C-alpha cells in the first residue's frame, strides 16, 4: 500500500528539479535567486538520496540527507553575509557588476 510509487518516478522528479536549479543558476542575474536555485539543487539531490535509501532499505541515506541539510544551512548563512557585504560596497547586487576581486 505504501509502496505504490515506483522508485523511477521519484528519480524523474529529482532530475527535473535539479535541472531547473541549473537553469536558474545559468539564466538569472539576481544572486539571491541564483542562491535559491542552488538550494533547489541540494533539495533534488536529497530527494534522490531518500528514494535510493528507501529502495535499498538502508538508513544511511537519511543520515546523509541530514548532513547535507546542515551544510546547506551553514552555506546560506555565509553566502547571505557575503551578499550583504557586496551590497554595502557596490550598492547593487547585480552579478554582472561583480567582475573585480578588489571591491
Amino acid at each position, binding site marked *: 500500500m505504501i509502496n505504490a510509487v515506483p522508485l*523511477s518516478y521519484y528519480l524523474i522528479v529529482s532530475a527535473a528539479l535539479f535541472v531547473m536549479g541549473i537553469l*536558474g543558476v545559468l539564466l538569472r*542575474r539576481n544572486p*539571491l535567486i541564483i542562491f535559491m536555485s542552488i538550494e533547489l539543487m541540494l533539495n533534488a539531490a536529497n530527494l534522490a538520496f531518500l528514494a535510493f535509501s528507501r529502495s535499498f532499505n538502508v538508513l544511511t541515506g537519511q*543520515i546523509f540527507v541530514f*548532513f547535507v541539510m546542515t551544510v546547506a544551512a551553514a552555506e546560506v548563512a555565509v553566502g547571505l553575509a557575503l551578499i550583504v557585504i557586496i551590497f554595502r560596497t557596490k550598492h547593487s547586487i547585480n552579478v554582472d557588476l561583480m567582475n573585480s576581486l578588489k571591491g
Partner: protein
Amino acid sequence: MNLTLILFIVLAAVAVLSALGLLVSRSAIYAALFLVLNFATVAVFYLLLGAPFIAIVQVTVYAGAIMVLFLFVIMLLGAEKLPRAEGLPWQRPLAIGLAAILLVEALYLLLGRLQLSASLGNPSSAANSTDALAELGRTLFSQYLLPFEVTSILLLVAMIGAIVLTKKEKGEAQ
C-alpha cells in the same frame, strides 16, 4: 491507480510548477515563496518515502529558518526587483539546450540501470516509524559520530564567519 500514486502525481506537478515559478518570477519575494512551496511538497515526498524525521527537519530548517533568512535579506537589501540586465544574446538558448542535454543524460543514467517498474523496498522496517527513528538516532550517534561532530564545528565556523564578515565592514565605515 491507487490513492498514493494520485497524491504523488499531484505533488510532483506542484513541485515542478513551483520550481518553474522560481525560475521565471521577476520578483525575488515571489521566487522565495515559490521555493517555500517547493520545500513543503518535497517534505511530503519525504513522508511518503518513510522518513518522517527528515520531513520535519525539512519543514523547520529549510522552509522555516533558511527561507526566513532569505526573505529577511531580500527585504533588507530592497532587492525585490533588479533592472533587467541584457545578458549575452546566445546565453539563454545555450543554457536551455545544455540543461535539456543534462536532463536527458541524468534520466538515462538514473533510469537506464533500473527496471522502470522497480518498486520501493520492503516497507516493514519503515512502517513502524518510531522504530525507524530510534534506529536512525542510534546509527547517527554511533557509526556517524565523527561526521556529526565535524558538522557541529562547521556550523560554529559558519556562524562566526557570518558575524565577522558583516561586522568588519561596519567598523571600517565608522
